[in-house]
């Protein structure tokens, strides 16, 4: 079970949250102008990296707000969490975002 820092509520058990997949995928502005390739790519194709992953989570059983997490999918270490309106934070590979 992960310990995740909601930007508003602080550290909570992962069971309070739901994972919502890859972050920073912008919805195309004019979907009707896209080819099948482009639309399918937007909807279904993902990076699925083994390593650093930028992903969205929602604090479903808490404040119900959405935010972003930087997590290493090989180790499950969380490097940082940030609000949707914040810039992507800098992080170092060694640092994990856990309470001291």
């Amino acid at each position, binding site marked *: 079970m992960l310990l995740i820092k909601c930007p508003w509520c602080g550290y909570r058990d*992962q069971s309070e949250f739901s*994972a919502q997949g890859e972050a920073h995928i912008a919805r195309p502005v004019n979907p009707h102008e896209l080819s*099948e390739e482009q639309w399918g790519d937007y*909807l279904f194709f993902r*990076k699925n990296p*083994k390593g650093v992953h930028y992903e969205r989570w929602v604090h479903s059983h808490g404040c119900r707000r959405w935010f972003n997490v930087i997590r290493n999918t*090989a180790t499950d270490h969380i490097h940082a969490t940030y609000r949707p309106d914040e810039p992507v934070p800098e992080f170092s590979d060694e640092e994990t975002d856990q309470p001291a």
Partner: protein
Amino acid sequence: MSVKPKPYSIFSLARNALNYHQGWQKAWRNAEPKRDYEVVIVGGGGHGLATAYYLAKECGIRDVAVVEKGWLGGGNTGRNTTIVRSNYLWDESAGLYEHAMKLWEGLSTDLNYNVMFSQRGLLHLAHSVHDMQEIGRRGNAIYLNGIDSEFVTSQQVKEMVPFINLDCRYPVHGALLQKRGGTARHDAVAWGYARAADNLGVDIIQNCEVTGFQVEDSTVKGVETTRGRIGAKKVGCVVAGHCSVLAEMAGFRLPIESFPLQALVSEPVKPIIDCVVMSGAIHAYISQSDKGELVIGAGSDAYLSYSQRGGFDIIEHTVGPIIELYPIFSRLKMLRQWGGVVDVTVDRSPLISKTPVKNLFFNCGWGTGGFKATPGSGHVFAHSIKTGDMHPIAEPFSINRFNTGALIDEGAAAAVAH
């Protein structure tokens, strides 16, 4: 070259017993990689090994290497709960999984290796009116595809599994039964295919990780590995949870995400359950291995991860319903728990496909339920690699269905994971 392997038989067993079992040959050679092969298969799980076997046996291509980063069957093949069935909703899936089922039925003889395939019958429980409607629809669709499928009442379920608690938090209204469904020994499937493929000249190379592809003019020419470059006219990539990692090396993305999936087994007990019982609605399924352990499949974690572990809370969510349905198991101790990395597509159907790189084929996306398809998957993939055109059974499972919209939606349709 090695000594010609001797077939296994009752006589070889007797002969070796007299010898205190000192005379058995190794089941396959420990091959050194050659510089070039006609076909390189990446991934020594059941699907990769089956592909190599059918290439050699049926397609006349014996210049084949299987390249595995760890040990044979160390991926999901050796971590799964071994359930085999072919009762899927859609025609495309019925074609694929029933093709596999027919091959399972003759597999031990074909491979001269006992894969302990046991058609002990498989029940899908229905816990609500909605569940009953779902099995009604699916059961009839399966039947119309010529695959065995029977409806049983809750009383018949009770006769098959006398200690089940029908009237609990998850009341049992009825079930769908596939009598030809059951289990097989997972390791034996990998080892049996490896031995039979090796016997036909296939090189099996373990502890050899593919780290890149050599691509010229959008055509694959070989693979880079931790044991040097290996040239190949064609490459088949069968690496399950790691397919996106390999796709990235080749320069494209897949419609797949990788999640941890767990299973656990209890301490061994005397025979108590002689069929497989599954419940999609509460995600609890159970069978008993020949060693006597209860084999329990858990759910997958909801977030992407390659950690091959899985969260502790998932075990609790699995064991809870098991004890509710089978109170008799409440005092059993659990012996082992483990996880695999499963490659999940949005429509819960696999990818057996060409890729943007010529002569590079991918077979993946089997997610939480590909063990049952091992022989069929390897068989149609081998024929596709041989001809360069996808086998008719494999054709609907191409990657570009995610662009055309022709999804094969087993996730939404069947609501069952394995």
